[in-house]
C-alpha cells in the first residue's frame, strides 16, 4: 500500500540531497571540531560554513548562531537562559496560551521558582492581540516569548510588530520558529528578534540538531556547562554531520520556499473546500493565506474522536495527527484548540493534515475520500450523532 504522509508538522523525511551532503562526515571527515589536527580542522571548517549558511538565511551574523540538539533545547535555553541572569531586572515573562509545550512548560517551571508569567489569550484564529501584549508588559518584564507559527493550527503571529514593541521597551524577545524556519521569510534584524529557536527535522534536515539564534550582547545563561563549545553557550562535542545536514536543508528550503508555499496553499484550499462539504465540519485556525502556514490544514468533525480517525486513516495508509486528548500522554485535549475557543469535545474531533514537498493533488483527493468514509463510519457508532436514539 502506498502511504501518504500528511504529518510534516511532526517531522519530515531527510532530503536525499541533504543526506548526500552529510555522507562524508560519517566515517571520513569524522573529526572532533575541537581537535587541532587535520581531522579536527575539516570538522571545524564544515561547521563554520554551516554557520554562515544558517546566519545568512535569517539575516543574522554567523557568531550569533548557536547549534544545539533541537527545538526543545532552544526553547528551554532561551526561556531559562534569559530568566535567570536577568532576574535582577525583573521577574516577569510574557508568553501566549498557544506555545509549544517546550516553551509552556519551561515557563511553568519558572512560575514555581518565583517568576510571574502572563499567558496571553488568542482570538478564534489563534492570533494574539498587540495592544494586550503592550498592556501586559511592564518594568518588571524581562522576556516576551511568542511563537512565530503555531504547530497545530498554523497561525502566523505578527512577530515583526512584537519585536518592535519589545525593542522599544528593551525587553528580550524570543520566538519559537520551529515550524516557520524554511517556510516563512525570517529577517532577524528587520523583525527585531533577540532569540529564535529552530529544529532541523522540521525542514527536511536531520533529527537531533537545531539552532538558537542569540543576538550579540544578549545576556544568556547556557543550559549545559562543559568544554565551552559554541562560545560557551552550548557545550558538548559538536554534531558535525547533523550541523552540516541542517545547513544544507535550510539552504534548500530557502531556495524553494516561495514556490513551495504557493503550491501548498493551492492544495490546502482544495482540501479545505472539499472537507467542509462534509456535514458538521469546520476548519481550525486562520483562513488559508499569508497569515497561515502554507502546509497546515486543521479540520474539525462533530461527534467523532480524533485518535480513532487517525488510526482508521492509518489503516488506509494516510498519516496525520489530532489534538484529541486520547492521542496525548496527559489526557487533556490540545491546549491550543481550547485556547481558540473550541469545546473539549470539538477539540477531540480535530484532524491535522500537514503537507510536504511530495504531497500531490491526487493525494489530496484520496485523503478527502478516506476522511469522508471514516467520519461516516465513526459517526454511525457514535451515540452523539443524530441524537443516537
Amino acid at each position: 500500500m502506498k502511504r501518504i504522509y500528511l504529518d510534516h508538522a511532526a517531522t519530515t523525511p531527510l532530503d536525499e540531497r541533504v543526506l548526500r551532503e552529510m555522507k562524508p562526515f560519517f566515517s571520513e571527515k569524522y573529526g572532533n571540531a575541537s581537535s587541532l589536527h587535520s581531522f579536527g580542522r575539516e570538522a571545524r571548517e564544515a561547521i563554520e560554513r554551516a554557520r554562515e549558511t544558517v546566519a545568512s538565511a535569517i539575516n543574522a551574523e554567523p557568531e550569533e548562531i548557536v547549534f544545539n540538539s533541537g527545538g526543545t533545547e532552544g526553547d528551554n535555553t532561551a526561556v531559562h537562559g534569559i530568566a535567570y541572569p536577568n532576574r535582577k531586572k525583573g521577574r516577569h515573562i510574557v508568553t501566549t496560551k498557544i506555545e509549544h509545550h517546550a516553551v509552556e512548560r519551561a515557563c511553568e517551571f519558572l512560575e514555581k521558582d518565583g517568576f510571574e508569567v502572563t499567558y496571553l489569550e488568542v482570538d478564534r484564529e489563534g492570533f494574539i492581540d498587540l495592544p494586550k501584549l503592550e498592556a501586559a508588559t511592564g518594568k518588571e518584564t524581562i522576556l516576551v516569548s511568542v511563537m512565530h507559527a503555531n504547530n497545530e493550527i498554523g497561525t502566523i503571529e505578527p512577530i515583526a510588530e512584537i519585536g518592535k514593541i519589545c525593542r522599544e521597551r528593551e525587553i528580550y524577545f524570543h520566538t519559537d520558529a520551529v515550524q516557520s524556519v524554511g517556510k516563512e521569510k525570517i529577517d532577524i534584524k528587520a523583525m527585531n528578534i533577540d532569540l529564535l529557536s529552530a529544529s532541523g527535522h522540521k525542514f527536511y534536515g536531520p533529527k537531533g540538531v537545531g539552532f538558537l539564534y542569540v543576538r550579540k550582547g544578549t545576556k544568556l545563561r547556557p543550559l549545559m556547562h562543559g568544554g565551552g563549545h559554541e562560545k560557551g553557550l552550548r557545550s558538548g562535542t559538536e554534531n558535525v554531520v547533523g550541523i552540516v545536514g541542517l545547513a544544507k536543508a535550510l539552504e534548500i528550503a530557502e531556495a524553494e520556499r516561495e514556490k513551495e508555499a504557493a503550491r501548498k496553499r493551492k492544495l490546502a484550499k482544495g482540501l479545505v473546500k472539499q472537507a467542509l462539504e462534509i456535514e458538521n465540519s469546520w476548519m481550525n485556525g486562520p483562513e488559508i493565506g499569508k497569515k497561515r502556514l502554507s502546509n497546515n490544514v486543521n479540520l474539525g468533525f462533530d461527534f467523532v474522536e480524533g485518535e480513532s480517525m487517525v488510526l482508521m486513516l492509518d489503516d488506509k495508509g494516510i498519516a496525520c495527527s489530532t489534538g484529541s486528548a486520547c492521542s496525548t500522554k496527559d489526557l487533556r485535549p490540545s491546549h491550543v484548540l481550547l485556547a481558540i475557543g473550541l469545546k473539549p469535545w470539538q477539540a477531540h474531533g480535530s484532524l491535522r493534515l500537514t503537507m510536504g514537498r511530495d504531497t500531490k493533488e491526487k493525494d489530496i483527493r484520496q485523503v478527502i475520500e478516506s476522511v469522508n468514509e471514516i467520519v461516516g463510519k465513526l459517526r454511525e457508532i457514535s451515540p452523539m450523532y443524530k441524537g443516537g436514539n
Partner: protein
Amino acid sequence: MYSDKTMDLFRHPKNIGEIKDADAIGKVGNKICGDVMWVYLKIGKNKKGEEVIEDIKVKTFGCVAAIATSSALTEVVKGMRLSEAEKITKQNVAGYVGGLPPAKVHCSVLAVDGLRKAIKEYKKKKRK
C-alpha cells in the same frame, strides 16, 4: 502502542448499534472528557430460569481503546447470566483486548461502567 487484538477489535467492532426495544440503556461518560458510551441491553431467561443478557449493543464516541474494549466486553457478556455480568471488574476488560498502555486503562473503564449502569437501570425498571 496497542496490541494486535485491540486493533482488530477496533477495526471490526462487534455489537455496534442500537437495540430498538432495549430493556435498558446505560449512558455513561461525558463529552468534556471526550468519551461517551451508550450500552443497550435485551434481557432474557435461560433454561434454568435465570436472567441472561440476550442481546447487547453499544454506541461509542471515543478513542481506539474505548471502541475496542466496549466491543470486547459485549462479546464476553452476550449470553451471560446477569448475576455473573455484574461481577465483571474494570481490571478484566483490559485483559479482553490483550492489555492496554497504562495511559489508556482509564478509557477501558467506561465499558464496564456502561454495562453496570444498564443492568442497574434494568433492575430499577423491573422493581417498579
